[in-house]
């Protein structure tokens, strides 16, 4: 009987990353397709209908021709849930994700977006210093690994906002900031998309949570009922702004609003907004302790 080595598992994770990156770029998830179809059904403006029908055509063409939905291959962002007993150390998981991202970029080939942040020179096939970006979560009493790949386009990422509200601003301050941010962003982040909001924690952690929020399946709700209620309320308010598809005016400004939260200091009230465009690309894999891959197991 052959023994599975950590090298084998590292190769399996690399293969998974290479597959996830391209797959995410080409085949958008079913929940997003459903949300876009519902948006098309309820939009009443002429320009908004033009945009949503074009999006629908585009998704079908990407399916038929096995092409990328959007040309912006983004920066690869991965979320990993690592079991306590998963046999590969996170340092090696990171190497595998980086190598898989690079391999997919070269083999497909995909546009490489990675540049040095000062010189603006390309740093490699969608990899570089601290690229790709990985969010980590560690799970006790488990031997598996879950990986989610979210290629994040720059049009939406440029529409990220942070405000250190004070406690006296209350929840009203949070709502106002989210509304102002999305109206100010207008058509730039390719609406209608997913508004991710991170509240509490610290400045850096609020933005991290906002990014986690955009990666959730569309329309899922925060487990805390108080936060879930705020998600519902903001979703309704954002769709009253009239920004509309691609910022040309209309009824559908956002597909959803997701919020992640953390407890915070008594004098802090941070709120971060991270936008995800309508092409909210996302793909997942589960890796078991033997390195077997099970794609599309959402978490």
């Amino acid at each position, binding site marked *: 009987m052959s023994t599975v080595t950590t090298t084998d598992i590292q190769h399996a994770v690399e293969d998974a990353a290479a597959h996830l990156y391209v797959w995410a770029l080409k085949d958008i998830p079913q929940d997003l397709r459903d949300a876009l179809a519902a948006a098309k059904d309820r939009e009443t403006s*002429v*320009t908004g209908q*033009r*945009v949503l029908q*074009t*999006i629908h*055509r*585009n*998704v079908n*063409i*990407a399916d038929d*021709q096995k*092409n*990328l*939905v*959007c*040309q*912006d*291959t983004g920066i690869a962002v991965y979320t990993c849930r690592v079991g306590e007993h998963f046999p590969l150390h996170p340092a090696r998981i990171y190497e595998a994700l980086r190598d898989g991202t690079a391999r997919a970029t070269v083999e*497909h*080939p*995909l*546009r490489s977006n990675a540049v040095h942040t000062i010189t*603006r020179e390309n740093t490699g096939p969608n990899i570089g210093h601290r690229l790709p970006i990985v969010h980590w979560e560690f799970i006790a009493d488990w031997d598996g690994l879950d990986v989610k790949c979210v290629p994040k*386009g*720059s*049009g939406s990422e*440029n529409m990220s906002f942070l405000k250190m509200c004070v406690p006296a601003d209350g929840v*009203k301050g949070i*709502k*106002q900031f989210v*509304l*102002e941010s999305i*109206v100010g962003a*207008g*058509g*730039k*982040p*390719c609406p209608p998309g997913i508004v991710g909001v991170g509240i509490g924690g610290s400045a850096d952690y609020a933005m991290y949570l906002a990014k986690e929020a955009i990666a959730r399946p569309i329309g899922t709700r925060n487990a805390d009922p108080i936060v879930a209620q705020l998600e519902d309320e903001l979703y309704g*308010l954002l769709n*009253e*702004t*009239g*920004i*509309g598809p*691609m*910022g*040309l*005016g209309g009824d559908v400004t956002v597909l959803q609003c997701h919020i992640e939260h953390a407890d915070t200091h008594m004098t802090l009230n941070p709120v971060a907004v991270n936008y995800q*465009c*309508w*092409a909210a690309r996302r793909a997942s894999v589960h890796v078991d302790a033997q390195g077997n891959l099970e794609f599309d197991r959402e978490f």
Partner: protein
Amino acid sequence: MARHEVTFPITDPAEILKLRAGDEVTVQGHIIGIRDRTQIRIFDQGIDPPMNLSGAFLLHTAPNVRKVSEDAEGRGTYEKICIGTTTSARMVRFTEPLGAHYGVRAICGKGGFPDEAIEPMERLGMVYFAIVGGAAALETTQIEEIEEVAWEELMPECLWKFRVKDFGPLTVGIDAHGNSLYHDVQESAQEKLKELFARL
């Protein structure tokens, strides 16, 4: 809201003047791909573009391409993989000189231009076309061929010449008569915000 078909490059300014904000447009002919670094080179480094931009339609893009061959001087030819459109607002400051110095008549991108583009577009007879951002798979099928590439060292932010067929649907976002859909949408959204804030 009317529908139009326009072939670029144009020679008759009336082709632009007939377009009104909100109209739907389909484009034929040739369009030029351009992006941040391309325009920084032209205007901040003062290097004339090696392509004629008179009457041109510019597309804010940086495509996914495959190099298929190279001539004796090292100039490549490329085939399309996936070509889509980027956010225009970053490049708004180049609008006036593109029209005034090079005769560009149309700029196409996604997300719109802020209000500073309205005056030069009216004065110079230019138009901004809104494309559906992210709809690159469709856009790629409407680009028949990459006919020319200049400044390959800026890859993928080179100067690209594409031959297109039935490129669109585009929406006139800013017309040559001082109208901007983006201005109007922002104005009414800011009013709406006041009402929403009062309800919170």
